[in-house]
């Protein structure tokens, strides 16, 4: 009995040592990855400097007409840094980007939209534009502000609106499947205030590459590019991201 207990105790110890060894190896792997990312970030910082100082000539000419609508997703904790957000918008304005959506999940940017627009010289809120303004070449920067309530919750509101519309038609013999189409849902979304167009490019200023709940209906073919956190934003990296976008060719599934 004693020897069985000793063997059990011994194998338990071996198991614990083994686990500790594996844990150490795992931590070592992640440490090496962090070092790798640090080196890559340093190289990106150097490249960004070279781009913004004009030394890398291929980024000097941007075909900005290809970028009709830009979306910027910002981590909500960083979105309180209004001065950083305004700096980013000023860079984009100089590049010629006129129409964009600023998104953060918690709606921090929505709360500061008035002050952001005020801090820019030539900007208006997207909802202040009428149909005529949208068709013409943009004269000033138009900013849309969105949050998670415009995403999934927007679809819920659109569903309720569609249901109410359907009931008004008076057909209670069963649901007419033909009534519910992508066009109808799109129209219902616009009616409940989720009006913005589909962005061509979505820049993510967050710790991880993820859209953080940007309205699903609007990101079907949107290029999603991770820019790192807002505090480490650089003009050169922004220029490179937009330049790379202008070189993308999409098949749209074909």
């Amino acid at each position, binding site marked *: 009995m004693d020897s069985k207990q000793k063997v059990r105790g011994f194998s338990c110890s071996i198991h614990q040592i083994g686990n500790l060894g594996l844990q150490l190896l795992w931590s070592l792997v992640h440490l090496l990855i962090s070092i790798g990312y640090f080196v890559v970030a340093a190289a990106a910082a150097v490249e960004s400097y070279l781009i913004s100082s004009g030394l890398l000539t291929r980024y000097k000419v941007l075909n900005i007409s290809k970028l009709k609508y830009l979306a910027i997703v910002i981590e909500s904790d960083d979105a309180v840094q209004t001065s950083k957000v305004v700096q980013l918008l000023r860079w984009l304005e100089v590049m010629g980007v006129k129409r964009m959506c600023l998104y953060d999940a918690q709606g921090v940017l929505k709360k500061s939209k008035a002050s952001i627009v005020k801090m820019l010289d030539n900007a208006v809120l997207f909802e202040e534009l009428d149909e005529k303004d949208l068709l013409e070449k943009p004269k000033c920067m138009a900013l849309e502000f969105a949050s998670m309530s415009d*995403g999934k919750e927007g679809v*819920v509101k659109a569903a309720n609106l569609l249901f109410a519309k359907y009931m008004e038609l008076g057909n209670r013999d069963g*649901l007419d*499947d033909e009534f519910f189409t992508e066009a109808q849902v799109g129209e219902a979304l616009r009616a409940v205030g989720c009006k913005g167009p589909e962005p061509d490019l979505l820049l993510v200023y967050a710790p991880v590459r993820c*859209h*953080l709940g940007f309205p699903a209906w609007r990101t079907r073919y949107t290029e*999603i590019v991770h820019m790192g956190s807002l505090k480490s934003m650089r003009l050169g990296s922004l220029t490179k991201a937009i330049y790379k976008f202008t070189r*993308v060719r999409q098949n749209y599934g074909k």
Partner: protein
Amino acid sequence: MDKANERASGLLGRLSGFMRSCLFKVLCMGPIPTHFSFIMDGNRRYAKKMDMGEGAGHRAGFFALVSVLKYCYEVGVKYISVYAFSIDNFKRRPEEVKTIMDLILEKTEGLLEEGSIADQYGVRVYFVGNLKLLSEQVRIAAEKVMEATAHNTRCVLLICIAYTSCDEIVNSVRECCKDKMEEIEDEEGDDLVDIEKHMYMGVAPDPDILLRSSGEKRLSNYQLWQTTHCTLYSPTALWPEISLLHVVWGILKFQRSYAYFEKKKKML
């Protein structure tokens, strides 16, 4: 000579399996994604690159898929979803659509055979999407596989076919309204739970990591609703070139972002 070659390749196979198992033991010291999603992009470019005939790229892509499924199930991923065919893909040339559908039919029927990956790993298979758009043959085969694997509980494979996120959302809205019509006395509107209940992807939790091969940075109308808190990973390798290293790197990326997403989910 043949026997020696067979013995050598058997030995190499066992050695690589052992090394993979050691690698997975290290990986498992951190969190493993519950749901790993894949956009299998680049099969045609691969065929062009390797000077192969039409459809050969997709066949090569199928072998990559089987390997990826094995690696994921071995490391402990419970749910895997793959974007097999988009509604937009029906716009391709009819001959190409037919080639892909024939391959899907062949491999779907293969899942019913003994010794298939579904059998080996106890995989429950779901075909997720607007299945009414498929030919009767493919739809019946898909339904047979779903029925035959319904009792499997170890792992889940969701094959997104005739699928787009927008179609999924429209279908969910339609089904919610259908439910409301049947409970016409109930004056309450739809809520988020109702919409999510009717999503095609409602049979699985949201993905933790989404890998799109071939370096493209868009989701192409795939799981747009489900990827709010999902790490997006776009290796430049074409789908038939996707290997164990990409799966491992994807899991490492997930582990690095795990604490961040757990914090985000708690805030909801």
